[in-house]
């Protein structure tokens, strides 16, 4: 098999070939290394751990076929830079964590290595996961491997997990970890024709993942297809005594759940999600998915989530509030960047200069707004009020899930947009990208973005399936059924190698 084709395989197909010993883990790893080396134009990998990868691969080759083989043995993965990996430079794509080498491994990545997966390196992202276009990274933006049919503009791969989505779409790894606080897995997945799953809040441990907004952050997989998502999710999930918010709920074998008939499935269509965008590509893709589901015997139910329009304002109070506090630890004292001080500078200058020079514009903006909404005199009007509205939004979903099994929405209002085209004059313009994804984060619900097909510009576009708590099996199985009919092929033309 030639190497280019080898890297087009996802996790499941690679696993099957490895098991049949048709390929070796070393061979597979080398193929990805070659792809990564040729992909510098995409700017997806920011830290390469090839030595480590090849050692892991050679170990995997010895294990494959033995009793000690685990579920991801020999599978090369990319890791978002938000995950702390022991002795691997981890910066959350920020200057403030300059040369930070964690002396510990995040729970989720440790679980992947326990399953004998291979680490190719760290993936680019928006600084501290704050962004929807990967443009806030200190390493510069990632370029979407997909290009519009009518322009040569470089497009965003989405954000914040833009390195992850681009790397999977460009065959730089079999799958990648992402994190999703307001849409950071699903929006990039939609923009790159990949499958992105944000699990139920508490499904994956947050321990060792650099915090953005603690009550929203969830890790999840970005993969080439639904089966891979199921395989990777299983390896990433589970209770962690080190994370008080991780759930003591058994992890099902998600892959086993795939392929079941979805006849009688009740699919909710929220009018607040479709009407807003009227006649758009996003809605047309949604309708394609509806048609398929109907044909499979699903029942389409119109539902209402009345507080949807308040989701983004709620999110943009609460997430910055938490972030302003979570990012207070970056003070130049114990790790990361410390500003050069003048002789008489006090501790105050140490803090102010370090943080001013170390954080990027968007991160500073969110710290400032978060500080504002928590400050004396504004707490009740903003933070507390937003927490109450968050309850209302959660209640909306609780009501709807009494009537339907899943909710179907567009993932993003549009397909990938050119770098530099949004949010330069108005930060809120960029925030609008999260309009369909944020509600699931507010309510803690699992949600998956599945590529439906290409739009008029030849760019991929996804739909979002939102499930009730712990309904990942249902989400994955529904997506799997849709995927089989859609038969979307993720093969952007290789212009970068």
């Amino acid at each position, binding site marked *: 098999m030639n190497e280019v084709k080898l890297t087009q395989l996802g996790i499941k197909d690679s696993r099957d070939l490895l098991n049949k010993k048709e390929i070796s883990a070393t061979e597979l790893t080398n193929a990805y290394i070659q792809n990564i080396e040729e992909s510098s134009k995409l700017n997806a990998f920011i830290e390469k751990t090839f030595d480590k990868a090849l050692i892991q691969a050679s170990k995997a080759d010895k294990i494959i076929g033995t009793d000690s083989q685990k579920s991801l043995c020999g599978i090369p993965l990319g890791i978002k830079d938000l995950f702390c990996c022991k002795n691997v430079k981890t910066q959350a794509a920020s200057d403030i964590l300059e040369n930070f080498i964690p002396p510990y491994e995040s729970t989720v990545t440790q679980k992947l290595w326990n399953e004998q997966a291979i680490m190719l390196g760290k993936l680019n992202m928006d600084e501290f996961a704050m962004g929807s276009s990967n443009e806030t990274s200190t390493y510069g933006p990632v370029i979407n491997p997909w290009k519009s049919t009518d322009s040569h503009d470089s497009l965003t791969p989405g954000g914040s997990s833009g390195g992850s989505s681009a790397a999977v779409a460009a065959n730089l790894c079999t799958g990648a970890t992402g994190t999703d606080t307001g849409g950071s897995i699903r929006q990039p997945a939609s923009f790159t024709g990949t499958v992105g799953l944000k699990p139920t809040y508490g499904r994956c441990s947050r321990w060792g993942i650099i915090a953005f907004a603690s009550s929203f952050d969830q890790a999840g997989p970005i993969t080439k297809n639904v089966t891979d998502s199921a395989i990777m999710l299983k390896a990433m999930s589970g209770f962690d005594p080190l994370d008080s918010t991780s759930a003591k709920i058994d992890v099902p074998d998600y892959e086993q759940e795939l392929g079941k008939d979805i006849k009688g499935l009740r699919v909710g269509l929220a009018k607040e999600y479709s009407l807003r965008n009227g006649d758009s590509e996003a809605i047309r893709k949604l309708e394609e998915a509806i048609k398929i589901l109907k044909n499979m015997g699903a029942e389409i139910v119109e539902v209402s989530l009345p507080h949807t329009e308040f989701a983004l304002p709620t999110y943009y109070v609460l997430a910055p509030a938490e972030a302003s506090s979570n990012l207070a630890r970056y003070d130049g004292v114990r790790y990361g960047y410390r500003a050069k001080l003048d002789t008489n500078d006090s501790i105050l200058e140490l803090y102010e200069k370090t943080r001013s020079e170390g954080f990027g514009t968007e991160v500073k903006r969110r710290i*400032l707004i978060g500080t504002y909404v928590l400050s004396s005199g504004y707490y009740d009007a903003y933070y507390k009020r937003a927490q109450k509205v968050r309850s209302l939004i959660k209640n909306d979903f609780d009501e709807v899930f009494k009537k339907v099994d899943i909710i179907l929405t567009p993932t993003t209002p549009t397909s990938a947009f050119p770098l530099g085209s949004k949010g330069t004059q108005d930060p809120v313009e960029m925030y609008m990208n999260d309009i369909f994804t944020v509600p699931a984060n507010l309510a803690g619900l699992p949600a998956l973005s599945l590529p439906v097909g290409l739009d008029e510009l030849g760019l991929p576009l996804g739909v979002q399936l939102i499930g009730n708590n712990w309904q990942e099996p249902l989400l994955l199985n529904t997506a799997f059924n849709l995927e089989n009919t859609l038969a979307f092929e993720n093969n952007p033309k290789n212009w970068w190698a």
Partner: protein
Amino acid sequence: MDIDTETVLKIARLSRIKINEGESADIQKDLNRIVEFVKKLGEIDIDGIDEFNFGKTNIEDMRKDSVTIYDNTDDILKNTKNKNQDFFTVPKIVE
């Protein structure tokens, strides 16, 4: 305008972020734009609504009182150059 120049400086100081004169106006504009956006929350009647609950835990689910010997002073200090005799160092603080 909700956030005046003084407020920008106040929250910048609370955040320990230095704002240069040149960037102050832009920051103020952006912050006001965001505040204007989130002010929509004021339209909802929240009477009698509880704050979002992060979930609850009981005594059995908490950590037990046992000690881990970390023996990791080097790891704690290895990411900074600003140290002396196993202490972190910062510019002198006068109380």
